[in-house]
């Protein structure tokens, strides 16, 4: 069909990158604005409040730290999945892809226990401004983790089909692009963790 942006696996001459890569970066730009709005809201709420709990009083810092380490580790397994494809090692790609999705699960399970602890203490989004901000931002982030896990899970499972069909470069590019999203989710957490747990 004419007029559609074509699937290409080699970089375009004019931009020097593939259409898919510029597409994912533009999408991430919109994501920066989405999370930026929430961070701006946090700043306004905190500066406008007479009382604001210190993060380490309201949160379980060791659990938050473990979750940070889990997400950083998942970023490494993600780039290792991409590097494995570049080395034409499909077995290792699947292993690192599965590890990335698994670490995403670990992150969500720890988050679940944190949420349950807050609920058991009677803390809900409606309880106060701090918890409204905390639940909104972490839930939005968790939603991104779930989306990233779904995409990475799809490529981990379907990688073999791409490989056998001869669409190797297409798979490598798509895994790199889904990795860019996953790393962005990691970066958001790198800021959320100190803002909500440590300050």
């Amino acid at each position, binding site marked *: 069909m004419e007029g559609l942006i074509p699937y290409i696996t080699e970089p375009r001459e004019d*931009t020097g*990158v593939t259409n898919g890569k510029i597409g994912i970066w533009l999408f991430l730009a919109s994501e920066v604005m989405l999370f*930026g*709005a929430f961070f701006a809201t946090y700043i*306004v709420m905190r*500066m406008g409040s007479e009382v604001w709990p210190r993060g*380490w009083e309201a949160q379980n810092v060791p659990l938050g730290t473990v979750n940070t380490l889990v997400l950083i580790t998942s970023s490494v397994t993600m*780039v290792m999945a991409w*590097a494995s494809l570049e080395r034409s090692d499909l077995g290792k790609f699947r292993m690192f892809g599965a590890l990335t999705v698994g670490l995403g699960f670990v992150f969500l399970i720890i988050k679940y226990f944190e949420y349950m602890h807050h609920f058991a203490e009677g803390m809900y989004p409606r309880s106060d401004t701090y918890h409204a901000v905390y639940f909104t931002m972490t839930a939005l982030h968790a939603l991104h983790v779930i989306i990233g896990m779904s995409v990475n899970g799809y490529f981990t499972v379907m990688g073999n089909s791409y490989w056998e069909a001869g669409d190797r470069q297409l798979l490598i590019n798509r895994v790199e692009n889904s990795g860019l999203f996953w790393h962005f989710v990691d970066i958001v957490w790198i800021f959320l*963790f100190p803002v909500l747990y440590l300050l």
Partner: protein
Amino acid sequence: MDSHAQSHAIDIDKQVRRYMVVFVTLLALTVVTVGVSYMHLEVHEAVTVALIIACFKASLVFLFFMHLVSERQVIFVVLAFTAAFFLVLLFVPILTILDHIHIWV
């Protein structure tokens, strides 16, 4: 293995070694961030230290895991616009707070 494939494999090996160095650095900086929080600094000091470390960590992820260190100009143009609008997004609400407490009048 032809010479192109060989140099590609060497390049990937080099990148993987770099990923490991970045990984260890990110873990260490996370421990430092948490360690500083246990010092219970004043809010403005804690914010400064935490944000400096977080920005450094994010830069490492951007540069190496997201391959910005070897990316094309068009991506940097996208990021420059994003950064400019992001700063506007952060500072406009703060200006309204400053105005509310009559800094400008």
